[in-house]
């Protein structure tokens, strides 16, 4: 994980701002407006509306600016040019007009502009809610959901190419409905005073938020599982790669948030709603506010993890990086994986006789790993045998080769690759490789 990459921070800001802007729309339509009608505290209502309008407009502006920064950094990374030159060279325009990422970005810019238009009636509080509300929710949901096509979900083929982005689309909308509505909820709970009309607002808001949360959590669980399946793929990949470990941290935070939400729903919400004593209701209100703050912190941490995850190679390809089908059918092949680096070892032909071994070294980001010296050893599948060690020579294409490797018998041979990476850094990778019996 390289935390110096600016795209991580741009992604975090963009995700956060999108969730915030869309979350306020969801909150006003599904929670805020019905609560204001249920209670009677004109002063608190109008103060809250003003606050939310300001945050929503600010968030939408930050969404557009960070989106532009994301485009510039992506164009720079695609074209291998410094970010300052992507406009003069026309690369930014090519990315925008000729790639699916660019088309997604243009659609999202349009959605952001349309959403800004709906903000005027929505946030002013004139109750033309049904039409404006529906339009605003649709626009906000699509603005967040279309982020799916800017990430790993976009790459799949066949059924995966439909299911994965669809799951991601719903996942993002569900995240808006929960994480994005936490800040407005906390503001509402903080704005209402102690009188009866005010408590009625807090009660309706909490109940409605609780229902919205339940739907969101269910959606997040289902779609998150689908995404995990596609991007992690296996348990070793989940536990043994930086991508998988970050994903597990995200899942742990998510369940922590679910635990707090369950506590809110089962204990504090009933106390706030049913309690006859005003003091007890106010205490429950304070607890709910504190828990919303804790959930917000967890949500912010999740957004930061997501920002990093999108730049990491997904765990699933760690074990699929090598392309078995592109190799000649008689080659023996093994991909050896460790945290320090990995090696693709090909032995051609992969049956008894004289063969050539080719070794390619990669770092954890699948960039070629530079080695000063590479040794290659094979151990015959017999008890007490000692490995035959050879030095590999480097080809012009970067691969290390050993010619004239003698394979005396078929079976499970042991491959040991030793690479000198620096004065005191040595990488040793070991794995079995299958040598098939000769056909004729």
């Amino acid at each position, binding site marked *: 994980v390289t935390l110096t990459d600016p795209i991580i921070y741009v992604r975090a800001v963009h995700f956060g701002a999108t969730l915030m802007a869309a979350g306020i729309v969801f909150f006003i339509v599904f929670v805020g407006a019905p609560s204001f009608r249920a209670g009677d505290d004109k002063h608190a209502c109008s103060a809250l509306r003003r606050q939310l309008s300001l945050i929503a407009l600010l968030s939408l502006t930050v969404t557009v600016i960070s989106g532009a920064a994301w485009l510039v950094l*992506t164009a720079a*990374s*695609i*074209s291998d040019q410094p970010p300052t030159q992507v406009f003069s060279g026309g690369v930014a325009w*090519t*990315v925008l007009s*000729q*790639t*699916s*990422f660019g088309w997604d970005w243009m659609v999202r810019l349009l959605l952001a502009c349309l959403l800004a238009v709906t903000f005027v009636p929505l946030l002013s509080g004139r109750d033309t809610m049904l039409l404006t509300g529906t339009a605003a929710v649709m626009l906000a949901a699509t603005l967040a959901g279309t982020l799916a096509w*800017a*990430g*790993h*979900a*976009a*790459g*799949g*083929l066949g059924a*995966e*190419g439909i299911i994965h982005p669809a799951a991601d689309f719903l996942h993002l909308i569900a995240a808006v409905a929960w994480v994005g509505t936490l800040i407005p909820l906390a503001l509402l709970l903080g704005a209402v005073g102690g009188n009866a009309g005010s408590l009625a607002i807090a009660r309706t808001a909490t109940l409605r938020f609780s229902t919205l949360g339940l739907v969101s959590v269910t959606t997040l669980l289902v779609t998150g*599982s689908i995404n*995990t*399946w*596609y*991007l*992690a*793929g*296996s*348990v070793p990949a*989940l*536990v043994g790669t930086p991508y998988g470990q970050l994903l*597990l941290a995200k*899942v*742990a935070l998510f*369940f*922590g948030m679910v*635990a707090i939400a369950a506590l809110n729903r089962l204990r504090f919400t009933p106390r706030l709603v049913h309690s006859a004593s005003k003091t007890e209701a106010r205490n429950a209100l304070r607890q709910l506010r504190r828990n919303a703050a804790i959930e917000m912190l967890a949500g912010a941490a999740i957004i930061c993890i997501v920002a990093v995850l999108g730049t990491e*190679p*997904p765990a*699933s*390809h760690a074990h*699929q*990086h090598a*392309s078995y*089908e*592109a*190799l*000649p059918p008689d*080659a023996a092949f093994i991909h050896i994986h460790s945290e320090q680096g990995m090696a693709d070892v*090909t032995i*051609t032909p992969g049956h008894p006789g004289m063969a050539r071994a*080719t070794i390619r070294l990669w770092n954890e980001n*699948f960039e070629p790993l530079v080695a000063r010296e590479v040794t290659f050893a094979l151990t015959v599948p017999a008890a007490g045998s000692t490995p035959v060690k050879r030095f590999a020579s480097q080809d012009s*294409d970067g691969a290390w080769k050993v010619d004239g490797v003698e394979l005396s018998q078929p079976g499970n041979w042991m491959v040991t690759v030793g690479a000198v990476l620096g004065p005191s850094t040595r990488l040793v990778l070991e794995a079995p490789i299958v040598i098939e019996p000769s056909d004729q």
Partner: protein
Amino acid sequence: MRTFPTIVALFAIAVGASTARAHAFLENADPLVGSTVSAAPREVSLTFTQNLEPAFSSVTVTDANGAQVSQGKAQIGGNTMRVRLKALAPGSYKVHWHALSVDTHTTEGNFTFHVGGR
């Protein structure tokens, strides 16, 4: 909260190892990577694990002296990339590909194939 990884792990076991891929990697090649073909191929065809962005993906083929033997720009559609070749004499040829996946990540690689007995 030990149960979280367990739940995820159980789920992952239940669905088994998936066939998921991310980033465009070479899945299949014609001619095959490192292979020796008896007749000179007319084109090199590459299949990737993800769909490609035609505007930012390319393939070139060079001979042992580094002279380009591929003709024109690669034809790119979906997850395949193909490029026409000049008439090839027996010898070693290097294929260098550069792929931009629709998920905005670039990958590149190269391999050799040989024409004629060796």
